[in-house]
């Protein structure tokens, strides 16, 4: 059975995660309920003729995938697998608004064509002229992990030797206004919106695109190995520790073998209960990392988390801005990521240095 290695990374987020090493230019914004994106110069990556029809999620996905391929020194891949919670919501909004505004007449094709969840995967394939396996998973907060799980199985079963896997989500005005009404996003004028120690419901929202070039072989540029991925639908707070211990045991590991744990704290008082118990007991002697104060919360924010975890292994350092506790390790070999949202869509991802 072949192993799965991360040989390239690409990330577009609310931080400058391109043309930088590892969050050295990161800025903490605790005054907004929505974190805006640090956009690259899209025209450096996408031809002008193609770019004019693309919403930002598509553009971010194409740039992030291009960065991952470049780092992995790959021209093309055997599969493109993406995960997204809301898909290309910006064009979906445009299309639906046009239906309402024009009394169901005069519907134009562009926003309809671009509004599907697999637009990003499709556009990347068109750009690469890659006619291989191309799939998009839409599974809430485990959309990215579903894609990652599929990719790992394909490599293990030797159905592919190189795979581009990524998580993409974008914000759109009307959807954000609905999320605010529903209380998914924190109330305005109640800042600062500090994630740690939050006593309120709702999250600070974000968007981004993160891609990984996976291969079945170690190269000079290999960043980390993906040891295991597990997805669970619904757990009680009291069940999580045992599930993590079982997950580690399957991989012949114990808590003491973990060099850092990345927890998906998002500032929602109820959702974060799942992490607080682990922070205060299970992982009390393990370096702990959080990241959604930098990325914002969105369905595929955990892909940003895996980017952070991969960078920790690549640079053998944890930037102060993502540290949850003061613990350090001499080296960071094995890293566990745990993410969930509102008690559902739990995922455990285990990576290690090679």
């Amino acid at each position, binding site marked *: 059975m072949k192993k799965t290695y991360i040989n390239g990374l690409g990330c577009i987020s609310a931080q400058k995660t391109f043309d930088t090493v590892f969050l050295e230019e990161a800025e903490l914004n605790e005054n907004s309920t929505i974190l805006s994106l640090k956009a690259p110069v899209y025209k450096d990556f996408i031809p*002008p003729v193609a770019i004019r029809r693309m919403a930002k999620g598509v553009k971010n996905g194409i740039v992030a995938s291009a960065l991952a391929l470049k780092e992995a020194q790959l021209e093309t891949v055997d599969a493109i697998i993406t995960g997204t919670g809301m898909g290309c919501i910006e064009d979906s909004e445009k299309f639906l608004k046009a239906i309402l505004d024009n009394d169901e007449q005069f519907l134009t094709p562009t926003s309809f064509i671009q509004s599907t969840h697999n637009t990003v995967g499709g556009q990347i394939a068109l750009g690469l002229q890659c006619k291989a396996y191309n799939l998009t998973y839409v599974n809430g907060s485990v959309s990215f992990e579903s894609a990652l799980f599929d990719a790992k199985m394909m490599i293990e079963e030797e159905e592919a030797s190189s795979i581009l896997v990524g998580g993409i989500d974008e914000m759109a005005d009307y959807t954000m206004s609905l999320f605010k009404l529903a209380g998914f996003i924190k109330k305005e004028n109640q800042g600062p919106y500090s994630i740690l120690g939050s006593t309120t419901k709702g999250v600070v929202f974000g968007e981004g695109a993160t891609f990984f070039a996976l291969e079945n072989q170690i190269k000079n540029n290999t960043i980390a190995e993906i040891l295991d991925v597990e997805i669970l639908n619904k757990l009680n707070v009291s069940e999580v520790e045992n599930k993590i211990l079982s997950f580690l045991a399957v991989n012949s590991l114990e808590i003491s073998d973990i060099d850092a744990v990345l927890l998906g704290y998002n500032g929602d008082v109820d959702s974060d209960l799942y992490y607080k118990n682990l922070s205060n007991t299970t992982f009390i002697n393990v370096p702990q990392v959080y990241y959604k104060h930098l990325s914002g919360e969105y369905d595929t924010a955990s892909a940003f988390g895996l980017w952070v975890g991969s960078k920790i292994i690549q640079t053998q350092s944890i930037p102060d801005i993502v540290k949850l506790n003061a613990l350090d390790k001499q080296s960071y070999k094995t890293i566990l990521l745990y993410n969930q949202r509102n008690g559902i869509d739990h995922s455990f991802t285990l990576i290690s240095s090679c």
Partner: protein
Amino acid sequence: MEALKQELKSKIIEVLNLEDIAIADINDDDALFGDGLGLDSIDALELIVMLDKDYGIKLVDPKEGKTIFKSIETMAGYIAENRVK
């Protein structure tokens, strides 16, 4: 007619999201498709919808489009003759 041409250029830039093109960059007799502005078949659909929505012109025969959408000059001429709003 001149005002209609300027209006068309502005609408085409907006509807087709031609970010890097200004009204002054489009000459009245420039080819809209192919070597000129480089528009494609999806743009043609957008233009057909625009004719219907903004000028009340329904293109029944798609073959007509090739002549009508040749340039701003030909579009403006056709709209001036056939518009109902």
